[in-house]
């Protein structure tokens, strides 16, 4: 019986390590002055509740890892079913990787947009984001440009005109 490829882990397999990491970080970075740490039952300090929660997350993380391990063992034992499922999973994994790439590109565009806001101002950076995002999502040039104008105007009318929100003006010195 050959060992199963690593990717064939149950949905949620990475959750365990992530939860443990989160718990450990929470314990490490809890409150700044250690003298006000845990306190006691009579007066629990600021660190008490975060510590309990962090330990809960670590326990949950360990439970998730055990669950993933048990799932893998069960699958290894039922070899016929495992082989069939391995093929299905491999196909699903490859399409997942492609679509994850799409989500990553959108995320990079959004982060770039937020970073550009203080420099380019709301109107310019939003227009650029809308055009780039729509082109990436399969829209035509004309649609993307029209959408950029309409969206910028709508947001300005609503947030600046009605709610008096100060949107970032940027460093370019543009009047909009």
């Amino acid at each position, binding site marked *: 019986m050959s060992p199963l490829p690593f990717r064939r882990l149950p949905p949620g397999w990475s959750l365990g390590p992530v939860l443990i990491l989160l718990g450990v970080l929470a314990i490490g970075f809890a*409150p700044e002055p250690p003298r006000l740490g845990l306190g006691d039952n009579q007066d629990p300090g600021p660190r008490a509740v975060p510590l309990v929660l962090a330990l809960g997350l670590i326990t949950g993380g360990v439970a998730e890892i055990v669950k993933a391990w048990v799932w893998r063992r069960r699958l290894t034992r039922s070899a016929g079913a495992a082989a069939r499922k391995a093929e299905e999973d491999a196909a699903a994994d490859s399409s997942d990787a492609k679509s994850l790439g799409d*989500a990553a590109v959108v995320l990079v565009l959004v982060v770039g947009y*937020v970073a550009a806001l203080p420099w380019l101002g709301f109107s310019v950076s*939003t227009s650029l984001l809308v055009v780039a995002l729509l082109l990436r*999502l*399969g829209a035509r040039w004309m649609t993307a440009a029209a959408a950029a104008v309409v*969206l910028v105007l709508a947001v300005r009318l609503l947030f600046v005109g009605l*709610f008096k929100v100060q*949107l970032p003006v940027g460093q370019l010195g543009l009047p909009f």
Partner: protein
Amino acid sequence: MLELLQPGVVVPWMLAMLFGLFVGATPGLTATMAVALIVPISFYLPNPSTGLAMIIGVSFTAIFAGDIPAIYLRIPGTPASAATTLDGHALALQGRAGYALALDLACSCIGGLIGVLLLMFLAPQLARFALRFSNFEYFWLGVLGLSLSAAVSSGSTARGLLAAGFGMLLSTVGIDMVSGTPRFTFGRSDLMMGVGFIPVMIGLFGLAEVLRNVRHRAALSAPAIRTESGLAVRECLRTLRRRFRTVLRGSVVGTFTGALPGAGADIAAWAAYGLEQKIAQDPERFGQGTDDGVIAPASAHNGAVAGAWIPALVFGIPGDSVTAIVIGAMLMYNLKPGPLIFEQSGDQVQTIFAIALITQFLLLPCGYLGIKAFGTILRLPRNLVLTAVVVFSVVGAFALRNSLFDVYVMVAFGVVGFYLESQRVPVAPLILGLILGPMVEENLRAGLIKTGGSFGPFLTRPISLVLWLLLVGSFLGPWIARRLRRSSRAKRCPPAP
């Protein structure tokens, strides 16, 4: 009553309700914000009844309006609409957005109506009961709310609890209210007041949804939601006749929950949703687009708005942030909330009740207009709508405090939401953990300080006892019921030899 139906009152009242509808339906802008924005405008009006009508109208309308983007886009307009996203959006994905919204609107009106009637008849008794709650009871109330949200979310309850724990951990970021110690702030002033609830909510429900959607390229040029031409009013009326008990239960649960100070429309909606799922014969249908999953939270959140008025009117204790602003406005109108208000300002109290009642009927045409306006926008291709959601998410997160840091928080939680859903972890309990975390922690610590470190009163005080037994029951009940069902099935059909 007739004075309230004059055009000079009704016109600004309805305009204010349309404004509430607009703010409530805009993700990132809350019902509290809508009320806060309308209060200064209401003071420019010559008749105090008109001002009160505008404020009360906005509070009910904005809470309903949060359900419109929740159903269409899976982005709750206000925190109270988070529970509606589960089944409301599932119905929208089946091409039944119009039906879900009509049902939601009708239930919001009925919930508000029942809530106002309960407010009128039961106010003093209910408020007195809520006042018996001390730290011990509030602690259990918070824990019960958290566990309920984990239990009712789709997917594993254990993962729901982990999400709630993560949310609670997030709520500890900032200055500790008891000792004044900064926690997890890393010296950043942006984090001193804690992680903003609104950016987290927009990230988890808005940006994460966009990231999930862009993975399905083929569907991006199609309309965002298949909307019917009408609101399926007849079908909705038939459902209401059939499920009227659910509406009643949701409204009553909502009103009672809303009457507990600190427990607002969001907790009320979850409580009603959880109750319906627990007593349903087919609980697995919840989250798949069941009618009860829309009826219960919709009737509960507007019932809770009325419920929050109970302690506000009778004792001057705000039931939630909206009524906190309303109390301030009432004081400016020379109305002093408290036990004596019924004697000293009986007429004004009757006016408030009448306004709240009429608001429920005005909500029908206003809500209809809002749904129609929003539905037109959503006939656009999905890629356009997703792009608009990104822009509105960024601006919504920014608008609250004019802070780019909040926008980065929103983006970070967009990624967190995307990851958690890919790992089949429900995100709703995370939100509730963030809301209820401070309530649980502060009451636990204050209770322990009071008792000199003893956990006894947490377990033995009568209301505490009922609450923690409910908590245990909420976990053991379904398990015992499953075991009983399995054993009775085994008895009926013994295994073949």
